[in-house]
């Protein structure tokens, strides 16, 4: 099975090609340069493998949560590629990619993934690693102030949760205050990476969870209802 995954939901921009479990990746932390980087990354991965887009089985992308514009860049690129090459799409959580990366690289099976959501909030998800080596979400993904994040598994705060993502960089203090001994360590410099989307995408694809290009849409978590009371995002006249 062959799949291509991308993620631009944070300051990091990445693309990965997954060929029957073997993965190659392009990765760069480059705020506001995703539009310049992402297609050349994809082109070079395919050229190196000697593959055409149409030879892939599916595409995958980090569908958020994350920066609104960044999430839409990955989404729009994947929509264009999927429509053009007639391929299905697997949208994968960028928080899951973050947690999967921590497990893959740090060997931590219990991960609290946090992406800085600005204006005093984090995108948040707690993940446990299953038998098959894939992280699975506990409860649901949310956006909330760091002091309000849900305590992971209230009956079991045995202290071996690992924090991952730049939410842990920006809000280390309030998160630590909230979670106490449940958290042993964290890495605030981690970003979601396309290579860690791949294993999830391959699994989801095989379980029939791929969608058409049009149905591949972002998950923002912070939605219209949330920002009607949000003074940062109000009216501007159309500039031209």
């Amino acid at each position, binding site marked *: 099975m062959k799949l291509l995954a991308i993620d631009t939901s944070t300051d990091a921009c990445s693309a990965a090609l997954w060929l029957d479990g073997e993965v190659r990746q392009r990765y760069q932390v480059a705020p506001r340069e995703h539009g310049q980087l992402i297609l050349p990354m994809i*082109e070079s991965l395919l050229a190196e493998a000697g593959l055409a887009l149409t030879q892939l089985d599916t595409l995958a992308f980090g569908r958020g949560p994350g920066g609104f514009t960044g999430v839409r860049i990955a989404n729009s690129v994947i929509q264009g590629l999927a429509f*053009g090459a007639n391929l299905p799409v697997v949208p994968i959580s960028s928080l899951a990619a973050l947690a999967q990366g921590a497990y893959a690289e740090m060997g931590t099976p219990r991960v609290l993934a946090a992406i800085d959501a600005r204006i005093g909030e984090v995108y948040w998800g707690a993940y446990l690693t299953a038998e098959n080596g894939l992280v699975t979400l506990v409860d649901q993904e949310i956006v909330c102030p760091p002091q309000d994040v849900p305590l992971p598994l209230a009956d079991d705060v045995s202290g071996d949760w690992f924090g991952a993502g730049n939410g842990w960089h920006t809000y280390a203090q309030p998160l630590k205050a909230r979670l106490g001994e449940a958290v042993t360590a964290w890495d605030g410099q981690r970003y979601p990476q396309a290579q860690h989307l791949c294993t999830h995408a391959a699994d989801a694809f095989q379980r029939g969870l791929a969608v058409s290009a049009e149905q591949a849409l972002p998950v923002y978590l912070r939605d219209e209802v949330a*920002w009607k009371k949000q003074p940062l995002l109000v*009216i501007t006249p159309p500039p031209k």
Partner: protein
Amino acid sequence: MRVIGIETSCDETGIAIYDGQRRLLAHVLHSQVALHAEYGGVVPELASRDHVRKVLPLLRQVMAQADTRAADIQGVAYTAGPGLVGALLVGAAIGRSLAWAWGVPAVAIHHMEGHLLAPLLEENPPDFPFVALLVSGGHTQLVRVDGVGRYHILGESLDDAAGEAFDKTAKLLGLGYPGGPALARLAARGNPQRFHFPRPMTNRPGLDFSFSGLKTQAVNSVKQHQDDQARADIAYAFQEAVVDTLAIKCQRALRETGLQRLVVSGGVSANTLLRERLRDMTHELGAQVYYPRLEFCTDNGAMIAYAGYQRLRAGQSEPLAFFAVPRWSMNDLAPP
């Protein structure tokens, strides 16, 4: 050569297919006006979110209408600016990626170039060179056009765009958003004798505009005159002043350039009084005035497909990197 055009610079998603031999094959448009109305202006994030939901369904629709398969497409054009960056990025990312997946060239189009060239989609299009008045909620510009990519800005608004002044004044008169067309209807029952607004920047040389003073004048008039008829009278005086100012500057631009053709595009060009005034003015000068069809006066994909066709056929194309820019001077454009 057959080209797809994608427009997502503000609050309309427009997609079209233009063919060099058979001209415009199909175009579709989704307007977000209702989405933004309750906010009294375009909310950029809402606009971007809507574009990402609409582009592909509209693309499928326009390809079906034009009886066009992927293999028939030889290029993709998308608006890259000026406009709302988040909104532009959706069209740019989809357009650039789609072109690459299809193995055809892509081209990034300046939104205003689309408007400038829109009248060339019509039967009996104007020949180059011509003077163009671009007048909408986002811009008011006079441009000398000598060919595709050969533009010289003769004058532009130093503050509010004419359509913006219309919408703001309409809001002041309780006509909702966007209220420009409603203001024009209200003006129809206004008393021409009651108020007189100035014609800004017409009593000195130059082709620049300023409309924010008119808006202030309207505010002051509303404060002093609370009767219901006053609203119509203010609307009348306001519209008269804007239209008259636009006509005076167009006349001046034609005289100064010695050109005989005037092209008028943008949302305000649908205004009936403006059309009457420009017809009379050009008639006096022995000049011709050209408009795109009404639906192409406002944002649309057809004008982007057409501008893209002109540039792609001349061999222009973009690298794989795509971009979107909020500001972009037309003076910086070059011929393909």
